[in-house]
C-alpha cells in the first residue's frame, strides 16, 4: 500500500474549496434573505392617523425600491411598531427592533419619544433615521453620534416663522400657544430668538402652554383674546386632534390676531377636521405633493401616484418624510455596499443624496436635511386652497 502525503498547496486548495462549498449555501441564503427595516411611529392616540400615514408611505417606498432591485440585491421587508406617543412605549419598541435585528429604524413623530428611543437604538448599533421629530437635542450627538433627520429642525423653522411675523405681518404684539414638551418649548424659544435677531420691535403679550394630548383650549384662548395680539403662533404636533381643535376654537373665540401655524403643522388631517376655520391661517412647509418644485421631480411623481393608488389620497408632508427617509437609507446603503451603521451614516451626514422624492437632499454635517420653505396663506379652508406668499 502506498501512501502519499498531500502538499501544502493541495491542502490549502482543498480546504478553501471545502469551506467555499460549505459556505456557499449560507452566503447565498444570507444574500437572498430580505433586509428588515423598522418603523416606529404613533399608530394610535392623538397622532395615530399621522403615524399611520408615515408607515404607509414607508411601505409604498419599500415596494418601489424592491421593484427596482431592492438594497444590495435583497428585498426590504418592514417591521412596523406603535410608540403610542409615549416615551416608555417607544423604548420598548426600540428594544424589540434590536431583537428583530433590523438594519435601520425610521422613527419619530414626537420629539420626547425620539429622545427616549435614541440611546436604545444607538447601543444596539442600529442606524436611526428620524423622519419627523423636530427638537434640536435629537442631533446634538449626546445620545446618538450618527443621528440623521429628514424633517426641518426647530432652528430652521424658527427663522421662517420669525420672518412671517416681523416682515410679512408686521406683528408687534405676539402671542404663543405652545405644546409643553421638547418640541413646543424648543420651537417657541427659537422663534423668540430669531425675532430678537431681526431687530424690529416686538412684544410677547401672552404664552399659553398645553400638553400634547389636549383638545380643549377655551380657557387658554380666553387669555389670548384678552391680550389683544397682532398674531398668535400655534405650535401643536397633534395634527389629527389638538391642532384642528385649537384652530376651530380660535375662530369661535373671535380672536382678531392672525393665526400662524408652526412650520409643517398645517397638514391635510388639520384641514379635514377644522375645515372652514382654516381660512386665513398663515404657515409654511417644506413639501407639497402637487406644487413646484415637487410636481416636477420624477421620483415624487411616481411616489405620489403609487401612494394615491394604495391609499386613495395624496401623501402629506409626514408621509413624504417617511418615504424619503427610506430612500435616503437605501441610496446610501447601495452606494457604500454596506449595512453598517457608521458606514451608511457617513454616506449621508454632510453629503448630498440624489434622487429622492424631495429631490437631491443635502445633509449638514450633524445629519440635518436642508430644505427650502414655502410660505402660504389658506384662502379657503373648506377646499384647502392655498395662496403661496412670495
Amino acid at each position, binding site marked *: 500500500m502506498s501512501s502519499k502525503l498531500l502538499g501544502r498547496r493541495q491542502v490549502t486548495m482543498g480546504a478553501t474549496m471545502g469551506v467555499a462549498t460549505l459556505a456557499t449555501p449560507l452566503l447565498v441564503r444570507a444574500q437572498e434573505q430580505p433586509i428588515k427595516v423598522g418603523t416606529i411611529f*404613533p*399608530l*394610535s*392616540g392623538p397622532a*395615530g392617523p399621522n403615524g399611520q400615514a408615515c408607515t404607509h408611505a414607508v411601505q409604498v417606498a419599500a415596494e418601489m425600491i424592491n421593484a427596482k432591485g431592492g438594497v444590495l440585491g435583497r428585498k426590504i421587508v418592514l417591521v412596523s411598531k*406603535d410608540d*403610542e406617543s*409615549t*416615551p*416608555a*412605549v417607544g*423604548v*420598548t419598541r426600540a*428594544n*424589540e427592533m*434590536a*431583537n428583530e435585528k433590523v438594519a435601520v429604524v425610521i422613527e419619530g413623530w414626537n420629539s*420626547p419619544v425620539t*429622545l*427616549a428611543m*435614541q*440611546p*436604545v437604538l444607538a*447601543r444596539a448599533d442600529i442606524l436611526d433615521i428620524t423622519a419627523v421629530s423636530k*427638537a434640536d*437635542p435629537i442631533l*446634538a450627538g*449626546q*445620545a446618538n453620534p450618527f443621528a440623521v433627520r429628514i424633517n426641518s429642525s426647530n432652528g430652521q423653522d424658527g427663522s421662517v416663522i420669525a420672518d412671517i411675523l416681523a416682515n410679512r405681518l408686521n406683528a408687534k404684539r405676539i402671542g404663543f400657544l405652545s405644546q*409643553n*414638551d*421638547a418640541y*413646543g*418649548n*424648543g420651537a417657541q424659544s427659537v422663534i423668540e430668538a430669531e425675532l430678537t435677531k431681526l431687530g424690529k420691535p416686538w412684544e410677547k403679550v401672552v404664552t399659553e402652554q398645553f400638553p400634547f394630548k389636549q383638545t380643549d383650549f377655551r380657557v387658554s384662548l380666553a387669555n389670548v383674546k384678552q391680550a389683544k395680539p397682532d398674531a398668535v403662533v400655534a405650535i401643536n404636533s397633534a395634527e389629527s386632534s389638538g391642532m384642528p381643535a385649537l384652530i376651530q376654537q380660535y375662530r369661535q373665540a373671535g380672536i382678531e390676531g392672525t393665526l400662524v401655524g408652526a412650520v409643517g403643522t398645517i397638514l391635510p388631517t388639520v384641514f379635514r377636521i377644522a375645515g372652514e376655520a382654516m381660512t386665513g391661517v398663515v404657515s409654511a412647509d417644506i413639501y407639497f405633493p402637487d406644487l413646484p418644485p415637487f410636481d416636477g421631480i420624477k421620483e415624487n411623481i411616481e411616489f405620489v401616484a403609487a401612494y394615491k393608488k394604495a391609499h386613495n389620497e395624496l401623501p402629506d408632508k409626514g408621509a413624504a418624510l417617511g418615504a424619503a427617509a427610506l430612500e435616503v437609507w437605501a441610496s446610501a446603503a447601495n452606494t457604500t455596499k454596506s449595512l453598517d451603521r457608521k458606514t451608511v451614516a457617513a454616506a449621508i451626514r454632510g453629503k448630498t443624496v440624489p434622487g429622492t422624492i424631495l429631490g437631491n437632499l443635502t445633509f449638514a454635517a450633524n445629519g440635518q436635511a436642508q430644505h427650502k420653505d414655502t410660505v402660504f396663506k389658506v384662502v379657503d379652508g373648506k377646499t384647502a386652497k392655498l395662496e403661496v406668499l412670495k
Partner: protein
Amino acid sequence: MIKRHATSFALLLAGLAYFVPSVAGGAPAAYTACTTIAILAVMAYGADLVLSYLGEVSLGHTVFWAAGGYSAAILAVNYGWNGWATAGGAVVVSLVFACLLGLATLRTREFVFSLVTYAAAVVAMEIAFNWSYLGGSDGVVGIPPLDLPLLGWKFGGATNDELWPIAWLLLMATLLFIHRFRRSRLGTSALMVQMNPDLATALGVDARRVRLAVFVTSAPISALAGWLYAYQRAYVGTDMFETYFLVLMLTAIVIVGRRLLLGPLIGTALIIVQQNFFSIGGDGDKIVLGAVLAAILLLWPKGLVGFLDLLANRRRPAPQNED
C-alpha cells in the same frame, strides 16, 4: 421546621427566578422583558406599601419614581458619580420629598389624600418641565452605563442582559424588605390603623406617625426603581411623571390582589408580557387593560385572588346538614 422549609423554598424560587431569561430562550427580548418587569414591579411595590397597608391610593408615587430617575441622570451626567452614589442620591432625594408630602397629607384621608398626592405629582412635573437644571422639556440625555464598582470588581452595564442581575437583585431585596415589613411592628400597626383605627388608638398606636412612617418608607423603593430605569433607558424625561406609570403601578397592585407578597410582581408581569408579546395595538391594549381592570374590580374586588377563592369555594362540597 415549617419555617425553615419555607425559607429554603423561597430561596430556591428566588434563585430560579434569576434564570428565567435564559430559560425563556436567552434572547435579548427575554432579558429586556424580565429587566423591565423587575424594575416596574419594584416601582409598584412602593405604591403597594401605601395602598395595601395604609389603604390609601397614592397618586403621587410617580414623584418618587421620577426623583430616582432624575437623581441618577443628573448625578451621573453632570457630576460623573458612580451607580452607588447615584443610588444614594436617589434615596436621599426621595426621602426628602416623601417627608414633605407625608407631612402635608398627614391629616388627609381617602379622596383628599389621593387628590393632594396627585396635585404634588402635577406640580413636580411642571417644575421638571420648566427647570433647565433638570433638562426642562428636553429631559436629560447621555446617561452613561451603570457602573457599580465593588472590591475591585465592576458590576452594571448598559444592555438589558448586563442590567438583569442588578434588576433581579433589586427585586429580590425589595421582596425581602416587603416580607419583613409585613411582620414588622410598623407593618402590623399600619394594618391595624387601616382596619380598626379605634383599636389602634386604644392600644396607644400613634396613627399619624404610623401613616407618615409608611409613606416615607415607601418612597425609596419606587425611587430605586426609577434609578435603575434611568440607566436602562439612558434618558430621563418628564414622561416619568405621566399617567402611564401611575396607571401601571396601581393596576399591577389591584389586578392580583392587595396585601399579597407576589401580587405587584405578578400583576406587572401580566401587563408587560401582554404589551410586549401579545399587543393588539396601542388603543387595543388600553381597552383590554381598562376592561380587565374594570371587570376584576366589579366582579372580584379582591383581585384575581378573589376569583380563585370563588372557584375553590364552588369545588368544595357543601356542608352536610346532620339534623
